[in-house]
Protein backbone atom coordinates (compact mmCIF):
# COMPACT_ATOMS: atom_id res chain seq x y z
CA UNK A 1 0.00 0.00 0.00
CA UNK A 2 1.20 3.47 -0.83
CA UNK A 3 2.55 5.00 2.41
CA UNK A 4 1.31 8.43 1.37
CA UNK A 5 -2.20 7.36 2.27
CA UNK A 6 -1.13 7.34 5.90
CA UNK A 7 -0.27 11.01 5.55
CA UNK A 8 -3.85 11.71 4.56
CA UNK A 9 -5.06 9.81 7.62
CA UNK A 10 -2.64 11.79 9.76
CA UNK A 11 -3.82 15.10 8.30
CA UNK A 12 -7.42 14.04 8.90
CA UNK A 13 -6.72 13.11 12.53
CA UNK A 14 -4.88 16.40 13.05
CA UNK A 15 -7.80 18.36 11.61
CA UNK A 16 -10.34 16.50 13.76
CA UNK A 17 -8.22 17.31 16.80
CA UNK A 18 -7.78 20.98 15.85
CA UNK A 19 -11.50 21.44 15.18
CA UNK A 20 -12.26 19.69 18.46
CA UNK A 21 -10.03 22.07 20.42
CA UNK A 22 -11.84 25.02 18.90
CA UNK A 23 -15.45 23.85 19.24
CA UNK A 24 -15.58 21.65 22.34
CA UNK A 25 -16.26 23.27 25.70
CA UNK A 26 -15.11 20.75 28.27
CA UNK A 27 -11.47 21.21 29.22
CA UNK A 28 -10.90 17.45 29.40
CA UNK A 29 -12.29 16.93 25.90
CA UNK A 30 -10.24 19.85 24.58
CA UNK A 31 -7.20 18.25 26.11
CA UNK A 32 -8.04 14.87 24.52
CA UNK A 33 -8.26 16.63 21.16
CA UNK A 34 -4.76 18.02 21.70
CA UNK A 35 -3.55 14.48 22.40
CA UNK A 36 -5.20 13.38 19.15
CA UNK A 37 -3.22 16.06 17.33
CA UNK A 38 0.02 14.84 18.90
CA UNK A 39 -0.79 11.32 17.80
CA UNK A 40 -1.53 12.53 14.30
CA UNK A 41 1.96 14.04 14.27
CA UNK A 42 3.32 10.72 15.50
CA UNK A 43 1.65 8.90 12.63
CA UNK A 44 3.15 11.39 10.21
CA UNK A 45 6.60 10.85 11.73
CA UNK A 46 6.38 7.09 11.43
CA UNK A 47 5.08 7.32 7.87
CA UNK A 48 7.92 9.62 6.89
CA UNK A 49 10.38 7.27 8.57
CA UNK A 50 9.07 4.58 6.25
CA UNK A 51 9.17 6.83 3.18
CA UNK A 52 12.65 8.17 3.93
CA UNK A 53 13.97 4.79 4.92
CA UNK A 54 15.58 5.84 8.21
CA UNK A 55 14.59 5.37 11.81
CA UNK A 56 14.71 8.95 13.12
CA UNK A 57 10.96 9.36 12.80
CA UNK A 58 10.24 6.27 14.85
CA UNK A 59 12.56 7.48 17.59
CA UNK A 60 10.77 10.83 17.67
CA UNK A 61 7.47 9.01 18.08
CA UNK A 62 8.75 7.57 21.37
CA UNK A 63 9.90 10.98 22.54
CA UNK A 64 6.49 12.41 21.70
CA UNK A 65 4.74 9.74 23.75
CA UNK A 66 6.90 10.52 26.78
CA UNK A 67 6.36 14.25 26.42
CA UNK A 68 2.62 13.72 25.96
CA UNK A 69 2.58 11.71 29.19
CA UNK A 70 4.28 14.60 31.02
CA UNK A 71 1.75 16.96 29.55
CA UNK A 72 -1.09 14.79 30.89
CA UNK A 73 0.38 15.01 34.40
CA UNK A 74 0.58 18.79 34.35
CA UNK A 75 -2.64 19.28 32.41
CA UNK A 76 -4.83 17.08 34.56
CA UNK A 77 -3.44 18.72 37.69
CA UNK A 78 -4.50 22.12 36.39
CA UNK A 79 -7.90 20.93 35.14
CA UNK A 80 -8.69 19.07 38.38
CA UNK A 81 -7.77 22.14 40.44
CA UNK A 82 -10.08 24.28 38.33
CA UNK A 83 -12.82 21.67 38.65
CA UNK A 84 -12.48 21.56 42.43
CA UNK A 85 -12.80 25.30 42.83
CA UNK A 86 -15.59 25.80 40.31
CA UNK A 87 -17.38 22.46 40.18
CA UNK A 88 -17.13 22.62 36.41
CA UNK A 89 -14.50 21.97 33.80
CA UNK A 90 -16.14 24.10 31.14
CA UNK A 91 -13.78 26.34 29.26
CA UNK A 92 -16.50 28.97 28.77
CA UNK A 93 -17.25 29.43 32.46
CA UNK A 94 -13.63 30.28 33.19
CA UNK A 95 -13.98 33.80 31.86
CA UNK A 96 -13.14 36.15 34.72
CA UNK A 97 -10.23 37.50 32.72
CA UNK A 98 -12.28 38.61 29.72
CA UNK A 99 -13.46 42.15 29.61
Amino acid at each position, binding site marked *: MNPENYLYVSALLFSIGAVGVVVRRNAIVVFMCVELM*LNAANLAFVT*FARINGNLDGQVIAFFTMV*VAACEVVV*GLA*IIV*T*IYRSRRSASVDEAS*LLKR
Partner: protein
Amino acid sequence: MTTFTTPSLSYALLAPILIVLGGAVLTVIFEAFLSKAIRPLVQLSVTLGTLVLALGQLWRIRNESSLTAAMGSVAIDGPAILLQGAVLILAILGVFLIADEDQFTVQAAAIPGSQEERESIQSGEKLTEIYPLTLFAVAGMMLFTISTDLITLFVALEMLSLPLYLMAGLARRRRLLSQEAALKYFLLGAFSSAFFLFGAAFLYGYSGSVSLAGIYDSVSGGTGNSVFLLVGIVFLSVGLLFKVGVVPFHAWTPDVYQGAPTPVTAFMAAATKVAAFGAILRIFYTAFANAYWDWRPFLSVIAIVTMIFGSLVAISQRDVKRMLAYSSIAHAGFLLTGVIALNKAGLEASIFYLFAYGIATLGAFGIVTLVRDSQGEVTDLSRWAGLGKRSPLVATVFATLLLAFAGIPLTSGFIGKFSIFSAAYESGNKSIVVVGVLSSAIAAYFYIRVIVLMFFTDPAEDGTSVTIPSNMTRLTIALSFVITIFLGVFPAPLLNFISSMAIFIR
Protein backbone atom coordinates in the same frame (compact mmCIF):
# COMPACT_ATOMS: atom_id res chain seq x y z
CA MET B 1 25.06 -7.83 14.76
CA THR B 2 25.76 -4.13 14.91
CA THR B 3 28.12 -2.85 17.55
CA PHE B 4 26.96 -0.22 19.97
CA THR B 5 29.01 2.94 20.06
CA THR B 6 28.72 5.07 23.15
CA PRO B 7 27.69 8.64 22.44
CA SER B 8 30.37 11.17 23.24
CA LEU B 9 29.34 14.26 25.15
CA SER B 10 31.45 17.34 25.81
CA TYR B 11 30.50 17.82 29.42
CA ALA B 12 32.34 21.12 29.78
CA LEU B 13 30.29 22.69 26.99
CA LEU B 14 27.02 21.27 28.27
CA ALA B 15 27.85 22.13 31.88
CA PRO B 16 25.72 25.31 32.15
CA ILE B 17 22.55 23.35 31.38
CA LEU B 18 23.64 20.33 33.38
CA ILE B 19 24.35 22.52 36.41
CA VAL B 20 20.88 24.05 36.23
CA LEU B 21 19.26 20.61 35.85
CA GLY B 22 21.34 19.26 38.72
CA GLY B 23 20.25 22.19 40.88
CA ALA B 24 16.64 21.51 39.91
CA VAL B 25 16.88 17.87 40.97
CA LEU B 26 18.58 18.92 44.19
CA THR B 27 15.77 21.34 45.04
CA VAL B 28 13.21 18.58 44.40
CA ILE B 29 15.04 16.37 46.89
CA PHE B 30 15.24 19.20 49.45
CA GLU B 31 11.54 19.78 48.93
CA ALA B 32 10.91 16.22 50.08
CA PHE B 33 13.35 15.91 52.97
CA LEU B 34 14.02 19.28 54.59
CA SER B 35 11.88 20.64 57.41
CA LYS B 36 9.50 23.42 56.54
CA ALA B 37 11.26 25.94 58.75
CA ILE B 38 14.57 26.03 56.90
CA ARG B 39 13.27 25.17 53.45
CA PRO B 40 12.62 28.67 52.04
CA LEU B 41 16.12 29.88 52.81
CA VAL B 42 17.88 26.72 51.59
CA GLN B 43 15.83 26.50 48.40
CA LEU B 44 16.44 30.14 47.57
CA SER B 45 20.19 29.89 48.15
CA VAL B 46 20.50 26.67 46.14
CA THR B 47 18.52 28.19 43.26
CA LEU B 48 20.56 31.37 43.15
CA GLY B 49 23.83 29.47 43.64
CA THR B 50 22.98 27.14 40.77
CA LEU B 51 22.17 29.98 38.41
CA VAL B 52 25.32 31.93 39.30
CA LEU B 53 27.46 28.80 38.94
CA ALA B 54 25.96 28.11 35.51
CA LEU B 55 26.62 31.69 34.48
CA GLY B 56 30.24 31.35 35.60
CA GLN B 57 30.72 28.16 33.62
CA LEU B 58 29.14 29.84 30.60
CA TRP B 59 31.68 32.66 30.89
CA ARG B 60 34.52 30.14 30.96
CA ILE B 61 33.41 28.49 27.70
CA ARG B 62 32.54 31.75 25.94
CA ASN B 63 35.12 31.32 23.20
CA GLU B 64 34.33 27.68 22.47
CA SER B 65 32.41 26.62 19.46
CA SER B 66 31.24 23.13 18.69
CA LEU B 67 28.54 21.37 16.76
CA THR B 68 29.14 17.99 18.30
CA ALA B 69 28.83 18.75 22.01
CA ALA B 70 25.91 16.31 22.26
CA MET B 71 26.21 14.23 19.09
CA GLY B 72 24.96 17.05 16.90
CA SER B 73 21.85 17.77 18.95
CA VAL B 74 23.00 21.12 20.23
CA ALA B 75 25.26 23.84 18.90
CA ILE B 76 27.60 25.78 21.15
CA ASP B 77 28.37 29.01 19.34
CA GLY B 78 28.40 32.75 19.98
CA PRO B 79 24.66 33.31 19.90
CA ALA B 80 24.17 30.20 22.05
CA ILE B 81 26.44 31.64 24.73
CA LEU B 82 24.84 35.09 24.53
CA LEU B 83 21.27 33.80 24.67
CA GLN B 84 21.97 31.34 27.47
CA GLY B 85 23.69 34.12 29.37
CA ALA B 86 20.71 36.42 28.85
CA VAL B 87 18.32 33.72 30.09
CA LEU B 88 20.47 33.13 33.17
CA ILE B 89 20.85 36.82 34.05
CA LEU B 90 17.11 37.41 33.61
CA ALA B 91 16.40 34.28 35.66
CA ILE B 92 18.61 35.48 38.52
CA LEU B 93 16.81 38.83 38.62
CA GLY B 94 13.50 36.97 38.27
CA VAL B 95 14.31 34.74 41.24
CA PHE B 96 14.92 37.85 43.35
CA LEU B 97 11.30 38.80 42.63
CA ILE B 98 10.04 35.24 43.13
CA ALA B 99 11.75 35.16 46.53
CA ASP B 100 8.90 37.34 47.76
CA GLU B 101 6.85 34.27 48.79
CA ASP B 102 4.05 36.48 49.96
CA GLN B 103 2.87 36.40 46.35
CA PHE B 104 2.29 32.68 46.21
CA THR B 105 -0.39 30.44 47.63
CA VAL B 106 0.75 28.24 50.49
CA GLN B 107 -1.08 25.18 49.26
CA ALA B 108 -1.97 25.12 45.60
CA ALA B 109 -4.30 22.14 46.06
CA ALA B 110 -6.52 23.84 48.66
CA ILE B 111 -9.86 25.02 47.30
CA PRO B 112 -10.10 28.84 47.29
CA GLY B 113 -12.12 30.08 50.27
CA SER B 114 -12.08 26.72 52.05
CA GLN B 115 -11.21 25.95 55.67
CA GLU B 116 -8.15 24.11 54.42
CA GLU B 117 -6.88 27.25 52.73
CA ARG B 118 -7.40 29.39 55.85
CA GLU B 119 -5.52 26.88 57.97
CA SER B 120 -2.63 26.73 55.55
CA ILE B 121 -2.35 30.53 55.54
CA GLN B 122 -2.49 30.68 59.34
CA SER B 123 0.28 28.10 59.60
CA GLY B 124 2.60 30.77 58.19
CA GLU B 125 4.30 28.30 55.91
CA LYS B 126 5.73 29.30 52.59
CA LEU B 127 5.51 27.81 49.15
CA THR B 128 8.89 26.58 47.98
CA GLU B 129 7.87 24.35 45.05
CA ILE B 130 8.29 27.42 42.90
CA TYR B 131 12.11 27.09 42.97
CA PRO B 132 12.45 23.65 41.32
CA LEU B 133 9.81 24.69 38.79
CA THR B 134 11.79 27.83 37.99
CA LEU B 135 15.02 25.90 37.56
CA PHE B 136 13.43 23.33 35.25
CA ALA B 137 11.94 26.14 33.18
CA VAL B 138 15.33 27.88 32.99
CA ALA B 139 17.01 24.65 31.85
CA GLY B 140 14.36 24.23 29.16
CA MET B 141 14.84 27.81 28.00
CA MET B 142 18.61 27.40 27.76
CA LEU B 143 18.25 24.15 25.84
CA PHE B 144 15.68 25.73 23.51
CA THR B 145 18.16 28.38 22.37
CA ILE B 146 20.92 25.90 21.49
CA SER B 147 19.00 22.94 20.05
CA THR B 148 19.87 22.05 16.49
CA ASP B 149 17.52 19.20 15.87
CA LEU B 150 13.79 18.87 15.91
CA ILE B 151 13.58 16.31 18.73
CA THR B 152 15.67 18.42 21.09
CA LEU B 153 13.70 21.52 20.13
CA PHE B 154 10.40 19.82 20.91
CA VAL B 155 11.59 18.39 24.23
CA ALA B 156 13.08 21.76 25.23
CA LEU B 157 9.86 23.55 24.26
CA GLU B 158 7.86 21.31 26.57
CA MET B 159 10.49 21.49 29.28
CA LEU B 160 10.23 25.26 29.45
CA SER B 161 6.46 25.36 29.08
CA LEU B 162 5.22 22.75 31.53
CA PRO B 163 6.68 24.39 34.68
CA LEU B 164 5.42 27.78 33.51
CA TYR B 165 1.85 26.48 33.18
CA LEU B 166 1.96 25.41 36.83
CA MET B 167 3.69 28.58 38.02
CA ALA B 168 0.96 30.67 36.43
CA GLY B 169 -1.62 29.08 38.75
CA LEU B 170 0.09 29.69 42.09
CA ALA B 171 -1.05 33.20 43.05
CA ARG B 172 -2.03 33.74 46.68
CA ARG B 173 -4.70 36.34 46.05
CA ARG B 174 -7.34 36.22 43.34
CA ARG B 175 -6.72 32.52 42.99
CA LEU B 176 -9.60 31.85 40.62
CA LEU B 177 -8.08 34.31 38.16
CA SER B 178 -4.71 32.67 38.56
CA GLN B 179 -6.06 29.15 38.01
CA GLU B 180 -7.95 30.36 34.99
CA ALA B 181 -4.76 31.85 33.60
CA ALA B 182 -3.01 28.51 34.12
CA LEU B 183 -5.80 26.65 32.32
CA LYS B 184 -5.78 29.01 29.35
CA TYR B 185 -2.02 29.00 29.11
CA PHE B 186 -1.91 25.24 29.30
CA LEU B 187 -4.65 24.48 26.76
CA LEU B 188 -3.42 27.00 24.20
CA GLY B 189 0.22 26.06 24.83
CA ALA B 190 -0.47 22.36 24.32
CA PHE B 191 -2.47 23.23 21.20
CA SER B 192 0.43 25.20 19.76
CA SER B 193 3.03 22.56 20.59
CA ALA B 194 0.93 20.08 18.63
CA PHE B 195 1.24 22.43 15.67
CA PHE B 196 4.98 22.63 16.25
CA LEU B 197 5.28 18.85 16.26
CA PHE B 198 3.17 18.43 13.13
CA GLY B 199 5.34 20.98 11.35
CA ALA B 200 8.44 19.13 12.53
CA ALA B 201 7.01 15.91 11.07
CA PHE B 202 6.65 17.51 7.65
CA LEU B 203 10.13 19.04 7.76
CA TYR B 204 11.43 15.58 8.54
CA GLY B 205 9.42 14.22 5.64
CA TYR B 206 10.81 16.91 3.39
CA SER B 207 14.48 16.47 4.18
CA GLY B 208 14.75 12.98 5.64
CA SER B 209 16.74 14.44 8.50
CA VAL B 210 15.77 15.92 11.83
CA SER B 211 18.75 18.24 12.15
CA LEU B 212 18.59 21.90 11.16
CA ALA B 213 21.75 21.42 9.09
CA GLY B 214 20.11 18.55 7.18
CA ILE B 215 17.08 20.72 6.45
CA TYR B 216 19.39 23.52 5.30
CA ASP B 217 21.15 21.12 2.91
CA SER B 218 17.85 19.92 1.46
CA VAL B 219 16.63 23.48 1.00
CA SER B 220 19.90 24.48 -0.69
CA GLY B 221 19.94 21.40 -2.89
CA GLY B 222 16.33 21.90 -3.86
CA THR B 223 15.59 18.22 -3.37
CA GLY B 224 12.41 16.98 -1.78
CA ASN B 225 8.76 17.84 -2.02
CA SER B 226 8.36 21.60 -1.58
CA VAL B 227 4.76 21.21 -0.36
CA PHE B 228 6.13 19.35 2.66
CA LEU B 229 8.61 22.18 3.22
CA LEU B 230 5.89 24.83 3.12
CA VAL B 231 3.55 22.92 5.42
CA GLY B 232 6.48 22.29 7.74
CA ILE B 233 7.58 25.92 7.89
CA VAL B 234 4.06 27.22 8.46
CA PHE B 235 3.13 24.76 11.22
CA LEU B 236 6.49 25.04 12.95
CA SER B 237 6.23 28.84 12.86
CA VAL B 238 2.74 28.74 14.37
CA GLY B 239 4.09 26.78 17.31
CA LEU B 240 7.02 29.13 17.81
CA LEU B 241 5.13 32.37 17.24
CA PHE B 242 2.55 31.31 19.79
CA LYS B 243 5.25 31.18 22.47
CA VAL B 244 6.30 34.77 21.81
CA GLY B 245 2.70 35.93 21.52
CA VAL B 246 2.41 37.69 18.18
CA VAL B 247 -0.90 38.43 16.49
CA PRO B 248 -2.91 36.25 15.66
CA PHE B 249 -1.48 33.88 18.26
CA HIS B 250 -1.57 36.38 21.11
CA ALA B 251 -4.95 35.58 22.70
CA TRP B 252 -3.41 34.04 25.81
CA THR B 253 -0.92 36.82 26.51
CA PRO B 254 -3.07 39.46 28.26
CA ASP B 255 -5.02 36.90 30.28
CA VAL B 256 -1.99 34.98 31.46
CA TYR B 257 0.03 38.12 32.22
CA GLN B 258 -2.85 39.47 34.28
CA GLY B 259 -3.81 36.26 36.06
CA ALA B 260 -0.40 34.85 36.90
CA PRO B 261 1.37 35.98 40.08
CA THR B 262 3.31 39.12 39.15
CA PRO B 263 6.85 37.75 39.82
CA VAL B 264 6.03 34.79 37.57
CA THR B 265 4.69 37.14 34.91
CA ALA B 266 7.94 39.09 35.09
CA PHE B 267 10.11 36.00 34.77
CA MET B 268 7.95 34.54 32.03
CA ALA B 269 7.68 37.74 30.02
CA ALA B 270 11.41 38.36 30.08
CA ALA B 271 13.01 34.92 29.87
CA THR B 272 10.50 33.08 27.67
CA LYS B 273 10.83 35.79 25.08
CA VAL B 274 14.61 35.38 24.97
CA ALA B 275 14.32 31.61 24.70
CA ALA B 276 11.62 31.55 22.05
CA PHE B 277 13.19 34.28 19.92
CA GLY B 278 16.55 32.55 20.34
CA ALA B 279 15.09 29.40 18.84
CA ILE B 280 13.26 31.33 16.12
CA LEU B 281 16.47 33.13 15.15
CA ARG B 282 18.46 29.90 15.04
CA ILE B 283 15.84 28.02 13.01
CA PHE B 284 15.19 30.77 10.49
CA TYR B 285 18.82 31.87 10.18
CA THR B 286 20.22 28.36 9.77
CA ALA B 287 17.64 25.84 8.55
CA PHE B 288 15.38 28.09 6.47
CA ALA B 289 17.93 30.70 5.39
CA ASN B 290 17.75 29.76 1.74
CA ALA B 291 13.98 29.36 1.67
CA TYR B 292 13.38 32.96 2.63
CA TRP B 293 11.08 33.55 -0.31
CA ASP B 294 8.73 31.07 1.32
CA TRP B 295 8.56 32.57 4.80
CA ARG B 296 9.52 36.23 4.53
CA PRO B 297 6.20 37.46 3.07
CA PHE B 298 3.98 35.94 5.72
CA LEU B 299 6.34 36.78 8.60
CA SER B 300 6.43 40.40 7.36
CA VAL B 301 2.64 40.58 7.37
CA ILE B 302 2.52 39.08 10.86
CA ALA B 303 5.16 41.53 12.12
CA ILE B 304 3.31 44.53 10.69
CA VAL B 305 -0.07 43.44 12.06
CA THR B 306 1.47 42.65 15.44
CA MET B 307 3.19 46.01 15.83
CA ILE B 308 0.06 47.98 14.92
CA PHE B 309 -2.36 45.79 16.88
CA GLY B 310 -0.25 45.66 20.04
CA SER B 311 0.27 49.42 20.11
CA LEU B 312 -3.34 50.32 19.34
CA VAL B 313 -5.00 47.93 21.77
CA ALA B 314 -2.63 48.87 24.60
CA ILE B 315 -4.08 52.39 24.49
CA SER B 316 -7.50 51.25 25.68
CA GLN B 317 -6.28 49.10 28.58
CA ARG B 318 -7.35 49.95 32.13
CA ASP B 319 -5.08 47.45 33.89
CA VAL B 320 -1.33 47.86 34.27
CA LYS B 321 -0.52 44.20 33.73
CA ARG B 322 -2.75 43.99 30.66
CA MET B 323 -1.18 47.15 29.29
CA LEU B 324 2.28 45.67 29.73
CA ALA B 325 1.02 42.48 28.07
CA TYR B 326 -0.13 44.34 24.97
CA SER B 327 3.12 46.26 24.99
CA SER B 328 4.94 42.92 25.01
CA ILE B 329 2.90 41.92 21.96
CA ALA B 330 4.02 45.07 20.18
CA HIS B 331 7.63 44.35 21.18
CA ALA B 332 7.32 40.84 19.77
CA GLY B 333 6.43 42.52 16.49
CA PHE B 334 9.52 44.74 16.66
CA LEU B 335 11.67 41.71 17.40
CA LEU B 336 10.19 39.87 14.44
CA THR B 337 11.54 42.58 12.14
CA GLY B 338 15.00 41.52 13.32
CA VAL B 339 14.25 37.94 12.28
CA ILE B 340 12.98 39.06 8.90
CA ALA B 341 16.11 41.16 8.31
CA LEU B 342 18.06 37.89 7.97
CA ASN B 343 21.49 39.50 8.23
CA LYS B 344 24.19 39.68 10.87
CA ALA B 345 23.05 43.14 11.98
CA GLY B 346 19.56 41.74 12.50
CA LEU B 347 20.88 38.96 14.70
CA GLU B 348 23.00 41.31 16.79
CA ALA B 349 20.17 43.82 17.15
CA SER B 350 17.69 41.10 18.14
CA ILE B 351 19.96 39.76 20.87
CA PHE B 352 20.59 43.26 22.25
CA TYR B 353 16.89 44.08 22.09
CA LEU B 354 15.91 40.84 23.85
CA PHE B 355 18.32 41.53 26.70
CA ALA B 356 17.39 45.19 27.09
CA TYR B 357 13.67 44.49 26.89
CA GLY B 358 13.89 41.59 29.36
CA ILE B 359 15.73 43.69 31.93
CA ALA B 360 13.26 46.58 31.65
CA THR B 361 10.31 44.17 31.87
CA LEU B 362 11.57 42.63 35.10
CA GLY B 363 11.91 46.08 36.63
CA ALA B 364 8.46 47.20 35.49
CA PHE B 365 6.70 44.12 36.86
CA GLY B 366 8.81 44.40 40.01
CA ILE B 367 7.28 47.82 40.57
CA VAL B 368 3.80 46.46 39.88
CA THR B 369 4.29 44.12 42.88
CA LEU B 370 4.89 47.13 45.14
CA VAL B 371 1.73 49.12 44.52
CA ARG B 372 -0.84 47.59 46.85
CA ASP B 373 -3.85 48.14 49.04
CA SER B 374 -5.25 45.93 51.79
CA GLN B 375 -6.50 43.40 49.23
CA GLY B 376 -3.14 42.94 47.53
CA GLU B 377 -1.73 44.39 44.37
CA VAL B 378 -3.53 47.27 42.71
CA THR B 379 -3.33 46.88 38.97
CA ASP B 380 -6.18 49.18 37.99
CA LEU B 381 -4.52 52.08 36.16
CA SER B 382 -6.95 54.72 37.49
CA ARG B 383 -5.75 53.98 41.02
CA TRP B 384 -2.16 54.65 40.00
CA ALA B 385 -3.10 58.31 39.60
CA GLY B 386 -0.88 60.61 41.59
CA LEU B 387 1.66 57.95 42.40
CA GLY B 388 4.40 60.39 41.50
CA LYS B 389 3.30 62.71 44.31
CA ARG B 390 3.01 59.96 46.89
CA SER B 391 6.20 58.04 46.10
CA PRO B 392 8.30 60.01 43.65
CA LEU B 393 11.17 57.52 43.56
CA VAL B 394 9.09 54.50 42.55
CA ALA B 395 7.14 56.54 40.03
CA THR B 396 10.33 57.95 38.50
CA VAL B 397 11.85 54.50 38.06
CA PHE B 398 8.62 53.19 36.53
CA ALA B 399 8.48 56.21 34.21
CA THR B 400 12.06 55.59 33.08
CA LEU B 401 11.31 51.95 32.30
CA LEU B 402 8.20 52.97 30.37
CA LEU B 403 10.32 55.44 28.37
CA ALA B 404 12.69 52.56 27.64
CA PHE B 405 9.75 50.52 26.32
CA ALA B 406 8.78 53.49 24.19
CA GLY B 407 12.32 53.80 22.83
CA ILE B 408 13.17 57.29 24.04
CA PRO B 409 16.90 58.23 23.66
CA LEU B 410 19.24 57.69 26.64
CA THR B 411 17.47 54.43 27.47
CA SER B 412 18.32 50.92 26.29
CA GLY B 413 15.03 50.77 24.39
CA PHE B 414 16.17 53.47 21.98
CA ILE B 415 19.42 51.67 21.11
CA GLY B 416 17.51 48.41 20.69
CA LYS B 417 14.86 49.89 18.43
CA PHE B 418 17.38 51.92 16.45
CA SER B 419 19.64 48.96 15.75
CA ILE B 420 16.79 46.59 14.92
CA PHE B 421 15.18 49.04 12.50
CA SER B 422 18.46 49.89 10.84
CA ALA B 423 19.13 46.17 10.35
CA ALA B 424 15.70 45.81 8.75
CA TYR B 425 16.40 48.86 6.57
CA GLU B 426 19.76 47.43 5.54
CA SER B 427 18.04 44.25 4.38
CA GLY B 428 15.92 46.37 2.02
CA ASN B 429 12.66 45.92 3.87
CA LYS B 430 11.65 49.58 4.01
CA SER B 431 7.88 49.27 4.46
CA ILE B 432 8.32 47.33 7.68
CA VAL B 433 10.62 50.02 9.06
CA VAL B 434 8.04 52.71 8.33
CA VAL B 435 5.30 50.73 10.08
CA GLY B 436 7.67 50.00 12.95
CA VAL B 437 8.53 53.64 13.53
CA LEU B 438 4.88 54.70 13.27
CA SER B 439 3.70 52.09 15.74
CA SER B 440 6.51 53.06 18.12
CA ALA B 441 5.05 56.56 18.01
CA ILE B 442 1.59 55.20 18.84
CA ALA B 443 3.10 53.13 21.63
CA ALA B 444 4.91 56.18 23.02
CA TYR B 445 1.50 57.83 23.41
CA PHE B 446 0.18 55.32 25.91
CA TYR B 447 3.40 55.05 27.86
CA ILE B 448 3.49 58.79 28.24
CA ARG B 449 -0.19 58.79 29.18
CA VAL B 450 0.65 56.58 32.16
CA ILE B 451 3.49 58.91 33.12
CA VAL B 452 1.13 61.91 32.97
CA LEU B 453 -1.36 59.96 35.07
CA MET B 454 1.27 59.26 37.71
CA PHE B 455 2.76 62.74 37.94
CA PHE B 456 0.14 65.28 36.92
CA THR B 457 -3.07 63.85 38.33
CA ASP B 458 -4.21 64.27 41.91
CA PRO B 459 -3.97 61.11 43.96
CA ALA B 460 -7.25 59.39 44.83
CA GLU B 461 -7.77 58.65 48.52
CA ASP B 462 -8.53 54.95 48.23
CA GLY B 463 -5.86 53.26 50.28
CA THR B 464 -3.47 52.60 47.42
CA SER B 465 0.08 52.75 48.67
CA VAL B 466 3.56 51.68 47.79
CA THR B 467 4.79 49.00 50.14
CA ILE B 468 8.36 48.95 51.35
CA PRO B 469 10.06 46.47 49.03
CA SER B 470 12.07 43.57 50.33
CA ASN B 471 15.79 43.85 49.72
CA MET B 472 15.71 41.40 46.84
CA THR B 473 12.87 43.13 45.02
CA ARG B 474 14.70 46.41 45.60
CA LEU B 475 17.85 44.92 44.07
CA THR B 476 16.00 43.74 40.95
CA ILE B 477 14.34 47.09 40.41
CA ALA B 478 17.56 49.01 41.04
CA LEU B 479 19.62 46.81 38.73
CA SER B 480 16.98 46.96 36.04
CA PHE B 481 16.91 50.76 36.28
CA VAL B 482 20.70 51.08 36.24
CA ILE B 483 21.20 48.64 33.35
CA THR B 484 18.45 50.30 31.32
CA ILE B 485 20.10 53.71 31.66
CA PHE B 486 23.63 52.35 31.27
CA LEU B 487 22.80 50.53 28.04
CA GLY B 488 21.15 53.69 26.79
CA VAL B 489 24.20 55.86 27.47
CA PHE B 490 27.07 53.42 26.93
CA PRO B 491 25.74 50.71 24.65
CA ALA B 492 29.06 50.26 22.86
CA PRO B 493 30.69 47.64 25.15
CA LEU B 494 27.72 45.27 25.00
CA LEU B 495 27.07 45.94 21.30
CA ASN B 496 30.72 45.19 20.47
CA PHE B 497 30.68 42.07 22.59
CA ILE B 498 27.51 40.83 20.87
CA SER B 499 28.94 41.76 17.49
CA SER B 500 32.09 39.73 18.10
CA MET B 501 30.04 36.68 19.09
CA ALA B 502 26.92 36.70 16.94
CA ILE B 503 27.60 34.13 14.24
CA PHE B 504 25.57 30.95 13.98
CA ILE B 505 27.49 27.85 13.06
CA ARG B 506 25.84 25.16 10.99
